[in-house]
């Protein structure tokens, strides 16, 4: 039995108190320790990612499995059960990568309660790794909820002026959604002929047709509510703009880059993976909701004056693609949908992470995030402007950024499900429209006279390059993600 995944979860969780003590004693020591630890976690995550690519587990099977009995009495049993496959390994890797970048970016942007801040980052990272590697529904739920606690404090302590309101709204929204999801799991468990919370066990029973489709509707609806709040899917999205606007920028990176992925991951792993019969029956509803979210996010982003709010709505738009792609596979049987959805989650994490971090720099350097007030960035802050243009290009899915490929795959899968969904090609057009308009107003406009320039340093440019280079590299090496994703997509298609 392997201990790699447990290490991936335990290392950040155990590190948290040490980081707290170190940062209390000496700020620089604490930040360097955080950076070093997060790089170690990234190395482990990269190893996991590489192994999954080297030997992709066949559909329905998982690498690095760990299984221990946690609680058992009378007829009730619960396992500590971890494993990874082509769906979770890219997310594990990108979460670890973003954590490193967030710690680098926080040096300048976070200036109080730093000991608490860095230790909470590690608590968050450990919990996220747990979400992506759990193969037991209750374990999954536990990590899912632990993620909320650091995020509640991140928004509430280090956020903007309305931070307390945003923090409470965030935690009540997402906690309500996830408790309902839990109820769905419990209902499902009690109805099974031989109850189990283990995802692979349930999938084996599904393949043997031991679970009646009638049992799947309630948990599908319940898990839909939990995941739709996280994704977020319109109309469950109203916490997201508030949370993003108030959260400090490094935390927005984690929020959009990592936390939203939990929703997309949940839809693919659980809604489709455990309730395939009911999912297929209602696939059109999900497809339509995804499409609506894509359009809504794009149009709402167009109307925003706050740079960060615009990026937040772009997230809603992009995450709509994930749902759209995943359910397009169920309807059309084209594996491109789920593959594209997994790819989209990976590219979105980096592209949107870059933009959110950049919005923090812009506010820090220029003193505002209002698009109409930001003028002449191309002249006053040339390096920032270049990153902004490149990040926007990545977000709108312009080649050579691999976000292009991801959105392309999803749209193709959608069209093979139904020709009507071809209208989804309009979404990238609107996205490109508002990004270009934003660039015209901020980068290409003439500078206000007398405005001093505070551009970012070259070390920051290097950090931003880490977001963007993988996106370019992946368009030629997309097989790194798509090859291990293929058996997952085929397996899920086969279940349905």
């Amino acid at each position, binding site marked *: 039995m392997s201990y790699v995944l447990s290490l991936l979860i335990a290392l950040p969780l155990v590190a948290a108190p040490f980081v707290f003590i170190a940062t209390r004693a000496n700020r620089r020591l604490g930040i360097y320790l955080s950076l070093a630890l997060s790089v170690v976690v990234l190395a482990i995550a990269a190893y996991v990612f590489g192994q999954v690519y080297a030997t992709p587990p066949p559909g329905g099977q998982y690498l690095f499995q760990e299984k221990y009995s*946690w*609680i*058992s*009495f*009378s*007829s*009730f049993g619960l396992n500590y059960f971890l494993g990874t496959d082509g769906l979770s390994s890219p997310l594990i890797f990108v979460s670890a990568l973003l954590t490193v970048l967030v710690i680098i970016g926080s040096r300048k942007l976070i200036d109080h309660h730093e000991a608490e801040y860095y230790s909470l980052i590690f608590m968050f990272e450990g919990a996220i790794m747990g979400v992506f590697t759990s193969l037991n529904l*209750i374990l999954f*739920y*536990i990590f899912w*909820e*632990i993620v*909320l*606690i650091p995020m*509640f*404090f991140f928004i*509430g*302590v280090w956020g903007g002026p309305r*931070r*307390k309101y945003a*923090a*409470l709204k965030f*935690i*009540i929204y997402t*906690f*309500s959604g996830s*408790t*309902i999801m*839990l*109820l769905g799991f*419990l*209902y*499902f*468990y*009690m*109805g099974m002929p031989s109850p189990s919370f283990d995802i692979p066990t349930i999938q084996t029973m599904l393949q043997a047709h031991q679970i009646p489709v009638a049992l799947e509707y309630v948990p599908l609806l319940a898990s839909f509510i939990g995941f739709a709040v996280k994704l977020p899917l319109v109309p469950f999205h109203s916490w997201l703009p508030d949370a993003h606007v108030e959260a400090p920028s490094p935390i927005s990176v984690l929020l959009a880059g990592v936390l939203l992925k939990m929703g997309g991951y949940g839809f693919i792993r659980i809604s489709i993976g455990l309730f395939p019969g009911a999912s297929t029956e209602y696939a059109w509803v999900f497809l339509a909701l995804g499409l609506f979210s894509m359009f809504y996010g794009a149009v709402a982003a167009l109307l925003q004056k706050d740079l960060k709010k615009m990026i937040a709505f772009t997230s809603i738009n992009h995450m709509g693609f994930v749902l759209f792609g995943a359910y397009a596979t169920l309807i059309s049987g084209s594996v491109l949908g789920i593959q594209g959805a997994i790819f989209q989650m990976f590219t979105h994490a980096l592209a949107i992470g870059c933009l959110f971090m950049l919005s923090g720099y812009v506010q820090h350097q220029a003193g505002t995030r209002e698009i109409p007030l930001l003028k002449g960035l191309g002249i006053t802050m040339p390096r920032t402007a270049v990153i902004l243009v490149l990040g926007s290009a990545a977000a709108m899915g312009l080649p050579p950024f691999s976000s292009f490929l991801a959105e392309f795959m999803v749209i193709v899968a959608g069209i093979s499900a139904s020709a009507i969904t071809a209208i989804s090609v309009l979404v990238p057009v609107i996205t490109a429209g508002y990004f270009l308009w934003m660039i015209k107003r901020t980068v290409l406009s003439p500078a206000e006279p007398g405005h001093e320039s505070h551009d970012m340093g070259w070390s920051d440019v290097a950090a931003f390059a880490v977001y963007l280079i993988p996106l370019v590299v992946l368009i030629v090496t997309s097989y790194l993600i798509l090859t291990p994703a293929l058996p997952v997509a085929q397996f899920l298609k086969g279940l349905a």
Partner: protein
Amino acid sequence: MTDYLTITVALLAGTGLFLPLLQVFRTGRENLAGYILALVLAASLALIGLFTLYPSTVPWAGSLVIPDQMGGVFALVTLGVTLAVTVASFDFLKSGNKPIYYSLLGFTALGMVLLSYSQDLLMLFVSWELMSLPTYVLAGFDKKQHSNEASVKYAIIGAMSSAVILYAISLAYGLTGSTQISTVVAGFTSHPSALAGVATLLFVAGFGFKMSIVPFHMWIPDAYEGAPTTISTLLAAATKKAGFIAAIRVLLAITTLYAVTNSPLFTMANVFAVLALVTMTVGNISALTQKSMTRLLAYSSIAQAGYILIGFVAFSNAPGSSAAIIGLTGTVFHVINHAVMKGAAFLAAALVLLQLKRSDLKAYDGLGRRMPITAFTLAVAFLGLAGVPPLSGFWSKLLLILSVANGPYGWLALAAILNSAFSLGYYAWIIKRMYMDEGESTEKVKEPFWFVLIFAVMVGLIIGIGLFPQQVISFVSNAVTSFAG
């Protein structure tokens, strides 16, 4: 084996009787009584702990008391809480009469231990009174206006509930000719009558006062607010639990309300389900609007009683099924967790009241910086009460909701889930006040040693049981299986 129980009873009774002598001799060492009681309670805890590991079905004191595992669990919980309250009182109690205070605490503890093991209605009633009478005095121990008011209100309602229970016992004796619980229940089942149904409902009402079930909860917020906060801790975390063991012993074996009406809807499971729903909903909604911490905790305690009742529903609905075992395990487990979490929260509130001289919620603004240990304890206890994993409260709530998740009481599971989410509204709100709001002052406040010690133990239990629940769950489920056996 039953010698353990003899020693425990003798220890507690002897301590209760002789502690007041310290008052007479005026040794000048006021806290001595407290130290003695704490040692005795710790010794009793150890004895009962051993005793529960090697449970016995040999009757003790005739057939009045049978020391089974189920009783052991409750005796341990109530003794543990009393010990925590005693230790916290070392710092909390300022006025004189300390030996009397500790002596009364000792008698309450004895009452709760005997009640946990009672197998006979008369024994149950006597230990019920032994537990309750000292708390009436303790609730008024402050000799201040609001404390006395709380005490009188509590005493009147308490006397009423005792009268209701006694009336139910007399009906039961009249119908079955016995006060032995098992005989009474068997008699109710074999000769159903309308009077048996009435007696059952009277038991629900009588125990309901202590268990803080809506609509028998009216006295709770006033009493908890007026009483010295350490005594509120005792009422919420210990005597309330004693109400639950009485209900488990008497009510769980009765499944239908024979012949009160002929409607098939009128089953005990339905009665419990409605009570659970109303109790948790009323408790949570009222808690949200409170301005004082003790009242908020009182309503939260009422809401938790609603969750605990869910296990009763699952058990009465299908005794012997796996859902029944899961549900009752959840009930007993939640009783344990709730005692720890609510005990921690109340003692944290007691310390804030002691040091800042106020209990309104404004006192909690910015508490995270002023009293970091207290604020952390309160935050952990609140997250546990809301059912956030991986804290201990999550597991018991999980089992409770699981037991009714799929079946005729699915609506109750949904209600409990929504209530949990709703309750986070006020729990997270207090945490927000402690860690995100600016207080009126940022000056550090002293956190006395004994309180910090108890907080450390309780936070350790909440997190420890949360991470490694197997030991406690199998202990509880053994007790439940042998009880349901």
